[in-house]
């Protein structure tokens, strides 16, 4: 590592390797692989071009160019080996971390999913009503690249086609198949048979095809896949005034900068859009004291859960290692193999198996072990905490058992002998010689085990889903929730989807874990230096 900056060392291996000209076969393989990558990239860029996603298009183009340069130029050897992994790392690790930070400062979530334009068209198209006496169109349901669409024949006999995204537009009469006055097929589109229509009825009745690009002109909707009527929205957006008017109720909603349309007296329309909200998500626990209190409880429990899980499993594992490691004991291999089985069992299944065992009414533990008692193992706040700890110790002790055994075996026998000769009791030998040595070698593993359990999503979520719920808090927070399950519940469980708040919580977790690891690792270093 000290030679990084010495020029000879840096260039020498490169030159040595580059002396050999690449063989024709490897050259061919390389070019073929690059061609595949480029083809995919060009395909993607075409789609992006039509979707007008310019920024992504430019980034993709630049990356593709870079990849070509790296693999076609004769030098840049390290880059040739690093690029494939780095691309995935950049997109799915580094980018998503930065993106998380960005989301934490937005109101992204249910009701604030997209841009303002999308919100306006959603509001307009969600509130349509049939216009009485409007013209009737003959239609055929067709499917194209952009999804379901309507092939419509207007009362005047004009043939048009459109989808939910693209407004109706006239088609080339030469490409149309007519059945009497009604157009039934169009080149480039698949007409749905009556059977398909029956199968996809819900989709078809929900389909709204705009008459024009301006949504206020109305939509075509069909209920029987043969005739369509004109529907119009009772929400009208006024671009100049930036207001949304409900023509039926006569209410005017305005954009007051909160990512939604609202009236002066606080009435809000359900569909809003994404905006930056600054530190609002981070301040949320402080502005809602009950939630803040629950969050503090969750944070403390997360620490308690991680420390107790690691501690209990370690103590049990160490005790077993000391007990079962006696060479005079026959069949100790059998004990060892059987007791590490929980470690071999897929961990996502363990929690679900225990879920059945601990069921209050029908579970094995209550029925068979406690004589049909109704002990609420998973639904009482304190018992649920005990239960998840028992399950997690069950999952974790075999690992601790194995590493303690390994560590004990690596402590030289001479140390024990010397101490015994000096008159130390077995307890003294263990307490002042073996245990400190063992702790030094297992400390890094205990820390990573702590970090793992701090975010032990599976044990908690699959067993209790974080429940039972804490009473008196509006948000869905439970007594056994860890911070990570809270992130998941905040982001992905129905009714609560708030991506901004969830991202803010994950940044909080990151800060905690990073601090704890940094402190812990510097402490273990100190521990190592002592010896």
């Amino acid at each position, binding site marked *: 590592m000290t030679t990084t900056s010495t020029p000879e060392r840096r260039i020498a291996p490169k030159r040595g390797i580059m002396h*050999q000209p690449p063989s024709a076969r490897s050259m061919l393989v390389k070019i073929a692989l690059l061609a595949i990558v480029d083809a995919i990239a060009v395909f993607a860029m075409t789609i992006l071009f039509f979707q007008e996603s310019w920024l992504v298009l430019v980034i993709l183009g630049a990356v593709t160019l870079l990849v070509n340069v790296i693999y076609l130029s004769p030098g840049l050897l390290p880059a040739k080996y690093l690029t494939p*992994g780095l691309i995935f*790392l950049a997109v799915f*690790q580094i980018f998503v971390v930065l993106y998380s930070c960005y989301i934490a400062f937005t109101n992204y979530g249910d009701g604030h999913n997209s841009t303002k334009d999308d919100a306006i068209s959603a509001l307009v198209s969600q509130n349509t009503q049939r216009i009485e006496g409007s013209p009737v169109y003959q239609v055929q349901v067709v499917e194209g690249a952009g999804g379901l669409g309507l092939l419509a024949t207007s009362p005047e006999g004009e043939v048009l086609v459109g989808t939910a995204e693209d407004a109706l537009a006239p088609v080339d009469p030469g490409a149309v198949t007519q059945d009497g006055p009604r157009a039934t097929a169009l080149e480039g589109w698949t007409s749905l048979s009556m059977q398909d229509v029956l199968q996809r009825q819900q989709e078809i009745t929900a389909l709204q095809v705009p008459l024009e690009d301006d949504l206020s002109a109305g939509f075509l909707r069909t209920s029987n896949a043969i005739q369509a009527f004109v529907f119009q929205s009772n929400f009208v957006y006024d671009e100049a005034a930036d207001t949304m008017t409900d023509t039926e109720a006569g209410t005017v909603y305005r954009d007051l900068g909160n990512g939604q349309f609202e009236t002066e007296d606080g009435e809000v329309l359900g569909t809003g859009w994404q905006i930056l909200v600054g530190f609002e998500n981070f301040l949320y626990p402080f502005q809602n004291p009950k939630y803040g209190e629950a969050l503090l409880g969750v944070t403390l429990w997360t620490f308690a859960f991680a420390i107790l899980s690691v501690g209990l499993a370690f103590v049990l594992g160490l005790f077993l290692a000391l007990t079962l490691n006696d060479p005079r004991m026959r069949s100790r291999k059998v004990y060892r193999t059987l007791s590490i089985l929980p470690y071999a069992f897929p961990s996502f*299944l363990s929690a679900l198996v225990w879920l059945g*065992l601990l069921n209050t009414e029908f579970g094995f533990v209550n029925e068979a072990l406690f004589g049909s008692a109704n002990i609420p193992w998973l639904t009482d706040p304190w018992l649920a905490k005990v239960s998840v700890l028992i399950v997690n110790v069950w999952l974790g002790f075999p690992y601790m058992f194995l590493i303690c055994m390994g560590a004990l075996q*690596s402590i030289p026998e001479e140390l024990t002998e010397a101490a015994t000769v000096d008159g130390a009791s077995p307890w003294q030998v263990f307490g002042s010689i073996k245990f400190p040595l063992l702790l030094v070698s297992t400390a890094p593993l205990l820390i990573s085990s702590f970090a793992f359990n701090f975010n032990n999503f599976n044990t908690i979520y699959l067993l209790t889903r974080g429940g039972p719920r804490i009473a008196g808090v509006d948000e869905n927070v439970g007594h056994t929730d860890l911070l990570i399950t809270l992130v998941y519940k905040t982001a992905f469980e129905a009714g609560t989807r708030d991506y901004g708040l969830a991202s803010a919580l994950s940044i909080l977790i*990151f800060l905690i874990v990073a601090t704890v690891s940094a402190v812990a690792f510097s402490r273990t270093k100190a521990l190592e230096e002592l010896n």
Partner: protein
Amino acid sequence: MRFGKWLRVLGWRHLVGIAIVIFAIFPLVYVLSASLNPGGTLTGSNQLFRAFSIDNYVQLLSDSRRPYGAWFGNTLIVGIVTSLGTVLLGALAAYAFSRMRFTGRRQGLFGLILVQMFPQLLAVVAIYALMRGISEVFPAVGLDTLIGLIMIYLGGALGVNTYLMYGFFNTVPASIDEAAKIDGAGHARIFFTIILPLVAPILAVIGLLSFIGTTNDFLLASVILSSPDKLTLAVGLFRYVSEETNTNYPVFAAGAVLAAIPVMALFLYLQKYIVSGLTAGAVK
């Protein structure tokens, strides 16, 4: 040895051993018993091995609403492709770090450790949002696709894995590469035909760890996958018991047994290596 002494020296050890074995295996025995019990509910499962029938297995494999076979296949595909990809990407990077000297090498190694401080688990919201964006351009690799999920997992291919491999690559003497170079081998040839076979043990360990990690993942898989035939075992089996715990349990138990037996068999077969691997890590 007299009985009293035996009890004091060894007997209690056997008692501890028996107690811990019961604690360790009773959930496993229970799930096996429940899977063979034709009763159909949790209640009937509490008398161990009272009855024997494969009804639950038949029901498990014939339920078209919950295609267990497809879940099993998906889990294998995702697990195998991810672990192969992780090993390949990680080994390529480790080779570069171990054998080449370039600017930013030390920073790169340090950066890999740093990036891991923010696990993908925490960025799950951003991952979901990103995949939703990708879905709009490329539905084939976006939400609800196995390829999409594999790509996400490969995002974690570099990192601790590379670091472990890097350490192992360093133990292979550089003189071997140099000899091959003199014989006229190019860098790719050296990597694929000389280095990779020599570091096979670490590749196997990384592959196995990645496979286990991927198949056990519930969080990302449940966020990305949604349609019944695309699920992995973790997500699918969770849905089995999360809906109506009581009635589906024996069928779930059958699914759990089928999913666990191959894994446990592999584990017991490889036990020696896993144990020695852990131990080596423990007493580094």
